């Protein structure tokens, strides 16, 4: 039996960050991932904010930043675009477009350099409690393993099972899980190659489509849908979007990614005795944008730090880990509540309403317009905004 203070399951950005910070705080850490290559296949659009990386103390590297995006372009169903630039408005997920396959590996490398032991191609298959600790059973290249840990950090993604083995309800309802499909494409002709693009409307029911530039004519082109309100799959919607969009109709795919994105907000109960849940598994995803790299890493850092402190104190009880929930709430929960409201409003809009709003705002100078004026303008076109967004401002 292998013994460790902390076992982190899942080496995405959240898990690696948790492992890194737990190791920095002096705990013995094992970081395991079921995949043979950390970071591959990617499952996301790869956008992060510059501010987020700074907050996490991570220096951008040319190894994993594919390009900088200075703005956001929002496009309504009839093609009307509203452009926002970062000097005018603070924008989540706008900043860098990453190469996730490289980025994720580098985050894991940082965990390794901090002292964490990394196991790849190792799948957790079960969990039991023993002497106030947790024994995780795992499989690695045909070998059965048992790892005894004081604390397990579950960073096993939207398909999380580890939290549920511990009795936490990490399973998601289909209405809280965006079903996503994405092509990485070459030959994309974007109107504003410095902007990340969002397309709203019925071509992506319950979500939106995106085009995130990765340099030259390369971009991630994808969308998320709620399968509760469409009969077509995310993949079918994607094919239609690519064909109809002027920027992508002549582009060619070199990669297909699919996956679920938990957009229902933070999981309420994120800890129990000996176990913390973090990242996508804990719903650490901006419910409006679906972006979860920075928020997952923020949560991961908190998980790693709280777990390491619990090890020092020799108390791995739910009570001792509870502080993690408060810290996550403070760091992420408050803003997520606002984003949830904004999402509800956005998804309530018909194609006609979206077109009307885009038309009204397309020529706005966001540098001079203040929030109150903006809301006034919005409510004039879309009265229900007052009801749905009222408390936001």
């Amino acid at each position, binding site marked *: 039996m292998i013994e460790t203070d902390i076992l982190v399951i899942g080496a995405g950005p959240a898990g690696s960050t948790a492992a890194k910070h737990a190791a920095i705080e002096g705990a013995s850490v094992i970081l395991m991932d079921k995949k043979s290559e950390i970071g591959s296949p990617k499952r996301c659009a790869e956008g992060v904010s510059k501010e987020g990386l700074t907050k996490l103390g991570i220096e951008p590297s040319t190894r994993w930043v594919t390009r900088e995006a200075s703005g956001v372009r929002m496009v309504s169903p009839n093609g009307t675009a509203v452009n926002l630039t970062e000097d005018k408005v603070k924008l989540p997920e706008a900043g860098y477009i990453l190469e996730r396959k490289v980025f994720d590996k580098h985050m894991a490398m940082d965990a390794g350099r901090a002292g964490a032991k990394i196991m790849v191609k190792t799948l957790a298959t079960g969990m039991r409690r023993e002497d106030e600790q947790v024994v995780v059973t795992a499989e690695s290249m045909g070998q059965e393993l048992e790892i005894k840990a004081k604390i397990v950090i579950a960073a096993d993604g939207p398909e999380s099972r580890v939290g549920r083995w511990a009795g936490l309800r990490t*399973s998601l309802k289909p209405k809280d899980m965006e079903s996503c499909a994405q092509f990485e494409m070459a030959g994309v002709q974007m109107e504003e190659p410095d902007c990340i693009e969002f397309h709203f409307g019925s071509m992506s029911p319950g979500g939106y489509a995106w085009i995130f530039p990765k340099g030259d004519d390369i971009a991630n082109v994808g969308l998320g849908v709620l399968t509760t309100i469409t009969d077509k799959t995310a993949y079918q919607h994607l094919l239609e979007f690519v064909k109809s969009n002027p920027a992508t109709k002549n582009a060619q795919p070199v990669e297909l990614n699919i996956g679920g994105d938990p957009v229902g907000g933070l999981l309420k109960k994120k800890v129990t005795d000996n176990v913390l849940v973090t990242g996508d598994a804990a719903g650490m995803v901006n419910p409006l944008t679906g972006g979860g790299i920075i928020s997952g890493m923020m949560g991961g850092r908190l998980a790693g730090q709280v777990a390491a402190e619990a090890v020092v104190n020799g108390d791995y009880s739910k009570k001792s880990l509870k502080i993690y929930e408060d810290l996550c709430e403070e760091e992420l929960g408050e803003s997520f509540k606002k984003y949830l409201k904004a999402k509800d409003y956005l998804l309530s809009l018909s194609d006609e309403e979206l077109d009307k709003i885009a038309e009204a705002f397309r020529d706005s100078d966001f540098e001079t317009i203040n929030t109150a004026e903006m809301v006034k303008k919005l409510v004039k076109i879309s009265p229900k905004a007052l009801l749905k967004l009222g408390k936001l401002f």
Partner: protein
Amino acid sequence: MGFNGQFFLKIIEWTDNMIVKEWCMYCGECAGVCPRNLIEVREISLNFNEKNCKECEICIQVCPVKALEKRDD
């Protein structure tokens, strides 16, 4: 075939209802929504614990590429 034989056949039916199509990409969305935590996503395979499946079919519904199917018989 006696009682035991029939029983045995029944179990085979129960545990072989889910068909995973060859274009499955193991993204795990099905596992995330399974209310009973019965789906294990490996790097290139899916395991269903069908014994405890109540056939809610949410996994089939959410798949981004329609790679899951229930054998109907």
